[in-house]
């Protein structure tokens, strides 16, 4: 009998193409997602060495990071450098004959939203992309992680990666979430608990009742931020929720292949008694709607809390906390709900899916954003956008005073024209609150879509549960 294995162990074992004596492996890659910012140098490398793309049919390209999210972008992109990158992707996709969704295609969107939506991402696969939030795809029980540009070139040329196995970490969320608490609050709370380096060297498997009760959208939100906890990847074992989501997607298996795939997918779970090197348990009931106060995703507090002082911390974190407080322009002891907001950004690969837009629209229905508020919704893909329009969500956002944009990364990293100015303060559903992330000098508070919508209405960080009570 073989020893009990974790989900990670199983996927790993099924993808080792070669193992050297020192344990270095060539891991076979089933899906390689490519975008315009981290790939040009990799394709250039192929051309310079006369190499080719080994498996173009397993490679999928989509521009997302620096495309404008306003009309007309399929005709012309003003920013010259962005245009050169998008044109380069266009040329590389065509020259190397890889699957491609240009901005003119309704299926275009953020790479981590497009992959699952089109059925490219399936349980048990290995998925990589030159982007750290590739962890998103782990929601399907796929081993998915970000890689650098040299590795992008390596995968293009060989369809493998040189890897050593990570350790196993289990994050269990027991019980159910309380009303007003979402997948975003789970994932931020986990990072708050383990710190941004807490998962370094590990692959995290998220499990427990609260995880099982999440939709695929919610599971993607949770896995998406595994990287902010330092982990190489985040995983959730596939179940009926997963299979129902995958079924019928354009690139999902059909008919007899579907049955064969399903039989295999049902073997993808952690065996009873399998070893985890680290275990973290949070109670679902204890998780509150949270926000970040600082410039690291680990700077997480329940919305009912107050801004900490640097002296509340120890070691190197004291200086970092002081730097955060100065940068964020916050005073220790200040109530989080007293922090005024001038910009709201709903979108990104963390929270740019249909369920996220529904949650925000539910709060916004019949309300208006606070005076002077700049509020923007950037759907994660053209298809999410179309669906939101069909469901009447777009109209709710527009009536409330939000801008209704085209799909892309947008203000998540502000490489396109959507940026904060120095001192501007944004409630954002994205995943990074680093200094300058959303524009030089811009200040970012991370939170869930419902919390972002609530802040848009009141003009300050707000406990969405109070607003929910109001609407009942």
């Amino acid at each position, binding site marked *: 009998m073989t020893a009990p294995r974790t989900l990670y162990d199983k996927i790993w074992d099924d993808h080792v193409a070669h193992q050297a004596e020192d344990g270095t492996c060539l891991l076979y890659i089933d899906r390689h997602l490519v975008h315009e910012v981290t790939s040009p*140098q990799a394709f250039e490398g192929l051309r310079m060495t006369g190499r080719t793309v080994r498996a173009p049919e397993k490679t999928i390209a989509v521009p997302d990071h620096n495309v404008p999210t306003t009309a007309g972008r399929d005709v012309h992109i003003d920013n010259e450098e962005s245009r050169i990158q998008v044109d380069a992707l266009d040329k590389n996709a065509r020259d190397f004959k890889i699957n491609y969704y240009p901005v003119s295609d309704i299926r275009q969107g953020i790479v981590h939203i497009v992959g699952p939506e089109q059925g490219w991402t399936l349980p048990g696969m290995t998925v990589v992309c030159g982007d750290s939030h590739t962890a998103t795809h782990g929601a399907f029980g796929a081993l998915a992680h970000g890689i650098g540009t040299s590795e992008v070139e390596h995968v293009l040329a060989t369809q493998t990666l040189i890897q050593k196995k990570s350790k196993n970490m289990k994050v269990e969320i027991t019980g159910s979430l309380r009303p007003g608490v979402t997948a975003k609050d789970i994932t931020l709370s986990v990072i708050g608990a383990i710190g941004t380096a807490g998962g370094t060297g590990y692959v995290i498997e998220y499990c427990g009742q609260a995880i099982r009760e999440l939709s695929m959208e919610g599971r993607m939100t949770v896995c998406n931020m595994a990287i902010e906890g330092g982990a190489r990847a985040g995983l959730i074992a596939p179940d009926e929720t997963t299979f129902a989501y995958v079924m019928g997607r354009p690139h999902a298996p059909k008919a007899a292949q579907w049955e064969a795939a399903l039989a295999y997918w049902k073997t993808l779970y952690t065996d009873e008694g399998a070893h985890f090197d680290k275990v973290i348990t949070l109670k679902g009931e204890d998780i509150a709607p949270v926000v970040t106060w600082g410039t690291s995703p680990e700077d997480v507090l329940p919305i009912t809390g107050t801004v900490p002082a640097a002296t509340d911390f120890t070691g190197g974190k004291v200086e*970092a906390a002081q730097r955060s407080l100065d940068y964020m322009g916050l005073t220790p002891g200040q109530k989080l709900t007293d922090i005024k907001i001038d910009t709201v950004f709903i979108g990104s690969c963390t929270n740019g899916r249909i369920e996220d837009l529904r949650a925000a629209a539910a709060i916004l229905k019949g309300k208006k954003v606070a005076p002077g508020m700049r509020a923007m919704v950037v759907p994660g893909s053209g298809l999410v956008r179309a669906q939101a329009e069909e469901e009447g969500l777009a109209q709710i956002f527009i009536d409330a005073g939000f801008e209704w944009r085209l799909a892309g990364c947008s203000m998540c990293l502000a490489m396109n024209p959507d940026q904060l100015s120095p001192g501007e303060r944004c409630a954002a559903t994205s995943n990074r609150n680093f200094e300058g992330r959303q524009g030089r000098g811009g200040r970012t508070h991370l939170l869930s879509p419902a919390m972002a919508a609530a802040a848009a209405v009141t003009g300050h960080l707000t406990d969405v549960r109070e607003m929910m009570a109001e609407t009942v």
Partner: protein
Amino acid sequence: MDKFTKITGVAAPMPLVNIDTDMIIPKQFLKTIKRSGLGKNLFDEMRFTQDGQEIPEFVLNQPAYRNAEIIVAGDNFGCGSSREHAPWALLDFGIRCVISTSFADIFYNNCFKNGILPIVMPPEVVEVLMEDSRKGANARITVDLENQTVTTSDGQSFPFEVDSFRKHCLLNGLDDIGLTLEKAASIDGFEKTAATLRPWV
């Protein structure tokens, strides 16, 4: 890729924890399709004011550290995005080695692909190296990859761990892709087996 065998150079102290990739190279400089030329924008928002003036307090702007080849940093250096522009910018500036208690995973990998050696040391050793690096330009630290040691300006020597495969590649300046392509038969074999086991992939 440039070989890395042994360097003796000035080390810049950066005790801040969680120095992220947006600090190392802000995203406005990622709009390039080249690997080179990023050194001038290394740590851009910490190094320069909005109108491009040098911020004198920033360590790499101080005369002693302008030619630093080593950075001694606080915990969790390189966290954040997968951008290989971060090691490209470090390398272009002239940094060949970063020493910290911990690194973010992708950044750590990316360093090796570009001839930069990231070294993980226990907190008490990083503390000693940080102190040594504060002495300025005359206090040069020696990093010897062959023997896996870091030696301070006053001769204290500390061993470090490094993966044997990565060490081999760095010492010889080897190209990963070339090495992997030598194993093409294994990859072909894997693809054949996988096609029968998981034909839907």
